[in-house]
């Protein structure tokens, strides 16, 4: 029997659980190449400039302003990991959240991939075969 209640109205957009859907997910760039894992999230007040760090009031509505990548286990010994050691990926680059977080830009432009790029350019490209495509027919 119908209870006469109206169905719950559709929410605009999609509800995402930060812990379940964002934290510890793999981040892929526009070509599907891995960039990093979401180690933490940066939050800021709605409409605020994310580059200005100021305390938030208790009733402020916050949004995710950036994905952070960096030392994940810094807090084991005690204290919070230093935020300056973390790499930011601004939220505006995020295009989709599925079994991975997808970005609409190339991984090379983010500081999170600098070790990979350094090794690639300074070391691995110089070893014979480092640029060889294993899938190419020989």
């Amino acid at each position, binding site marked *: 029997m119908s209870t006469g209640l109206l169905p719950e109205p559709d929410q605009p957009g999609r509800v995402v659980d930060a812990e379940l859907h964002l934290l510890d997910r793999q981040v892929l760039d526009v070509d599907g*190449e*891995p960039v990093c*894992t979401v180690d933490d999230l940066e939050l800021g007040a709605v409409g605020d400039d994310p580059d200005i760090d100021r305390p938030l009031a208790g009733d402020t509505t916050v949004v995710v302003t950036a994905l952070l990548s960096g030392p994940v286990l810094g807090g084991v010994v005690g204290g919070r990991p230093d935020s300056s050691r973390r790499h930011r990926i601004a939220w505006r680059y995020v295009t989709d959240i599925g079994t991975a977080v997808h970005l609409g830009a190339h991984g090379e432009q983010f500081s999170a991939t600098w070790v*990979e790029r350094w090794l690639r350019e300074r070391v691995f490209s110089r070893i014979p075969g480092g640029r060889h495509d*294993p899938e190419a027919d020989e």
Partner: protein
Amino acid sequence: MRGPLAVALGILTAIGGFLDAGDLVTNAVVGSRFGLTLAWVVVMGVIGICVFAHMSGKVAAVSGRATFEIIRERLGPRAAGANLVASLAVTVLTLTAEIGGMALALQLASSVERRLWMPVAALAVWLVLWRVRFQVMENVTGLLGLTLIGFAVALYLLGPDWGELARQTLQPAVPPSEGAAVYWYFAIALLGAAMTPYEVFFFSSGGVEERWTVKDLATSRLNVFVGFPFGGVLSIAIAGCAAVVLLPLGIEVDAMSQIVLPVAQAGGPLLLAVVIVGLVSATTGAALETALSAGYTLSQYLGWSWGKFRRPAEAARFHVAMIVALVVAVGVLMTGVDPIAVTEYSVVFSAVALPLTYLPILVVANDPEYMGEHVNGRVLNAVGTLYLVILVVASAAAVPLMIVTEAGA
């Protein structure tokens, strides 16, 4: 490649690739001391690895995510980090055992001292990881590994008392010469050898390497459920050879030459040569898979780009991780430790680490957000849960039994 030929190739590769140094050594040791009274553990281990390899392959094919990405996502950075440390330690220990096994097999073929072979073997492994295409690597080592069928041929040629072997298999009992604690210690070692954690990392990441999709699930299921049981038959044949030849003479296996002694006795130099080819390719294949698994787990936990399908320069940190793992393995072996002893410890510590890998896979295979309509059915879940209970018990009992029995002495 599609069609029946591809299916046959996949199954043959799965058979040939099933055995590694852990299986070879543990089965021979067990056969020489317990006959076939522990063959039931191999059967149990094979069913377990089929179920979980199928599950991890399915997760990789449907979600495109490999095992350790999922472990990190489900357990968070700390618990997954602890899991990573344990899994990496066991994987590198297994890699050490495989490189040691390669060196022993090459020593058997050449009479050149094993410590001269170790760096050569590691270099060969690195060159394959650096250069050779994933599918070629898998097919070549898998097909050459098929020559281990020589153990089954040897068992047949030895003309054993089949009734007695069947009785030992079907009505297992602790032999009077051995204690119950030692029996159960080796039962856990055999389970660890059959279900080694790297196999799950490798299978799921390999699914991503080979770009499996839902369409490939049927092929993958066939490879696993037909190929692995035949691999298990070869395991039992190795134990059977040792049971027929070594057990009555009271020879306990502590060298590679003793593992192949029954083959030499039954089939002469020709069959021995064939089996040595199998030993080299089985250990080489497993060394490649464990080195890759070390790279896979670390890269997936930290979100690095990984995979043999990429140019090495485009998965730079992944290749660094594999090189470090190989250097560590050779470093450990060059201290002069006995590779057979390393192998015996590696399978027991594999058993200890098993629940760490198998629990997250079982959880995610039930998560509709990842799996959609392909979530586990009831039967698969029932079997998976049963195995998880067994694995937790085996994992908890492994170290106490190791201490009580002085590692099976």
